């Protein structure tokens, strides 16, 4: 108890000294100091808020074997090197897109993430979705029809994810491997995906009270689903990871990650 009272006395002395010191400072300086402090806090605060809304993460997602890793390296280095195998871990990188290296001036680097498509690693996608500024969903245009069910389920899960709906994240449906002759066109793929998602919508909303896996439902009631019904923008593009024709993807990325 003695210690406590001693400390109280010491504290009182210090506060008295502090107040005397402050009173000694001429008023303009004091006001200036306070103003500077206020401005600094406001500035930091606004930066935090500002940063939070401006993401620069672009996700490359899609089924296993659709060509995401190849696209990742094309975007980064302009060549796909010696090929790729099934990814076991995500590929991440923050860099300026390769084709923009030649541009002069300040170009903002893009944080590109290639999430493995294997179903066992599906949970990794959930980690990145909240911070995504844009999503590129890669589809294999060559082996499209055998995998259409899994691809549409994956796309459906992404489009109905809570963060994607809240942030209205734009999605690019990228048809990869279009350099091959037997690859399907992007219109065909778009129509087929819309049909499949319509089927999914019916089977999953038929049990809407019981459905707990999807947070939101897609589309408009009573109408056949189409990508224009989504609140977030869904566009379709073609690309070829092997040969390097990735202009549409690059434009998409640049559009949504503002320099």
């Amino acid at each position, binding site marked *: 108890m003695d210690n406590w009272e001693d400390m109280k006395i010491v504290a009182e002395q210090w506060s008295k000294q502090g107040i005397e010191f402050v009173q000694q400072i001429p008023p303009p300086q004091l006001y200036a100091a306070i103003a500077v402090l206020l401005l600094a806090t406001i500035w930091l605060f606004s930066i935090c808020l500002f940063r939070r809304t401006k993401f620069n993460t672009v996700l490359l997602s899609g089924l296993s074997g659709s060509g995401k890793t190849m696209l990742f390296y094309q975007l980064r280095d302009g060549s796909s*090197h*010696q090929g790729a195998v099934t*990814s076991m871990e995500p590929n991440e990188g923050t860099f300026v897109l390769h084709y923009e290296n030649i541009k002069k001036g300040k170009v903002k680097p893009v944080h590109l993430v290639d999430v493995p498509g*294997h*179903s*066992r690693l*599906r949970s990794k996608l959930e980690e990145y979705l909240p911070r995504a500024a844009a999503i590129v969903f890669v589809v294999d245009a060559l082996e499209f029809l055998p995998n259409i069910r899994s691809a549409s389920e994956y796309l459906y899960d992404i489009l109905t994810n809570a963060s994607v709906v809240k942030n209205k994240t734009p999605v690019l449906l990228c048809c990869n491997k279009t350099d091959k002759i037997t690859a399907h066109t992007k219109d065909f793929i778009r129509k087929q995906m819309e049909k499949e998602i319509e089927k999914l919508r019916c089977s999953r909303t038929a049990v809407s009270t019981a459905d*707990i896996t999807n947070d939101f439902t897609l589309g408009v009631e009573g109408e056949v689903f189409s990508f224009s019904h989504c609140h977030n923008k869904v566009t379709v593009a073609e690309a070829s990871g092997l040969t390097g024709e990735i202009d549409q993807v690059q434009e998409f990325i640049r559009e949504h990650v503002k320099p």
Partner: protein
Amino acid sequence: MLEQLLIFTRGGLILWTCKEIGNALKGSPIDTLIRSCLLEERSGAVSFNYDAPGAAYTLKWTFHNDLGLVFVAVYQRILHLLYVDDLLSMVKQSFSEVYDPKRMAYDDFDETFRQLRMEAEARAEELRKIKQLGKPVTGSVKKQGQVLKAGLEGGNKRVGEGGSKKDDGDGIKGKVSNLTNGHHSNENHKLGDDSQEGDLANGKENTSSNVAVDLSKLQKLRSKGVRGRGGVRKADSIGNKSSKVAAAEPAKKATKKNRVWDDAAPKQSKLDFTDSVDENGNNDHVEVVAADQGESMMDKEEVFSSDSESDDDDDDEPGSDEKPAEAKKKGWFSSVFQSITGKANLEKTDLGPALKALKERLMTKNVAEEIAEKLCESVEASLEGKKLSSFTRISSTVQAAMEDALVRILTPRRSIDILRDVHASKEQRKPYVVVFVGVNGVGKSTNLAKVAYWLQQHKVSVMMAACDTFRSGAVEQLRTHARRLQIPIFEKGYEKDPAVVAKEAIQEATRNGSDVVLVDTAGRMQDNEPLMRALSKLINLNQPDLVLFVGEALVGNDAVDQLSKFNQKLSDLSTSGNPRLIDGILLTKFDTIDDKVGAALSMVYISGSPVMFVGCGQSYTDLKKLNVKAIVKTLLK
């Protein structure tokens, strides 16, 4: 000869392939290796066999966990290359010196690789020469096989040169081609011994003991004057005899005579006390209200208390510190020191105690011992050589890795949306057939009724098929369920062939437009050969859409045996090229185990098929989906 050696990152980019060996690999062995082995947490295994039309490869791999690299060597299975493990570790060492995360092309590594390969081959040849000098009599089975073949074909030169292990060392192409030709002819002759050879290739330590046994058998056969080929035939005929004997047994079981007690006159009255029902299940006597017990738990959101990870950490401390207290004191201090600096590379010795503790914990949660062992090996393989990040203990790193691995195993490999599959079948106008298989007493009929109830709630028309024609009361049991749920049931009574009953049930379902047919089968032990044959006949004949294995959560180490034997029998006895294996698991009696949920993990690991339903009670609504996160949390608590 090595077919290919690849170096790639864990993210999937190929960094270097051997350009000297230009053969393109048939099929996609690397992708299959990743999908069915490395991602399935079997990275502790020694090697992986891959079969493609036109090629049979064996793959061996090693990780460099610190840099996140994977080294894979592919070679033909018929060649037993000894130097592959050696070569892989040498390549790992030299490549990690050259590796730079920014660099993508490593052409200068070709030269280094060539030197390393020659070194490894030379070393292997030396070792083999030493072995040959030391043990002239016992060689591999192949060597002896070649001696026999020499008797058949008269190739005395080959006998002098020695066994198959010579091929790898010799760079002389002529001999290699001769030997490969010889191998192909050998393949045609030796049908029975093929699998044996594969085993020998993998289990090098067991080689000598296996060889000793085989040699003595071969010597005996040889002395009897039977040729090599005939010897194989003899072995086959022995196998046939035993199965014939087994098949004869069920025929002996004639109709059972009623037992007579106390010398009283046998009563002729029927012992069937079930209410009389006509075909459709409509009961005249009793008013049965359609069972409506509310929403099935499948559709309810699972609310589990999300206790924070701090709980786990607290439990971690007392558990691990209890047993090896003294030995760990010095280790604890150094590990604390290391955890702050965070520079240590994880070694096997560091991971050992943490993994052992984790294995014990898993086993107390009723995970089968074999599975826990394999899992720990896999986690060890993925952590060895990794740098500890600062401020983390070894045990927490191991725990995080194990949690990751468990989530990965329990997450299904494909979509388990049954309703979607049912709708797809509906469009094709055929019924969706589900067959429930399992050992005795696990709850097939009960859970069949629960699944029927759940499907009914989702407006799917269901039909039951009573293919358990053995157990007394099985048909009545299903009839009662069908009456309560008001769904049609197809039954043919007892002592009928279940495969035929199932076939007729499916035809009936197509006729009256049912969406789903649930087929109940009799419980059978996995060792019972004739019953397993009957089951595979049922599955082959009817080609169901879903083969659901019903297993109880109380089972311990037997789960591994049950599932692997079921799968094996289904694939062995299948008539078509594509055998139907177990597609999904239904875990029952989940309410009887509090937190000993390990059976789920054992079953999923050993079969690779996902858990589709979990039965947690005896009423119709007690059917749930497997909550992966909750199970992982409970397992590691």
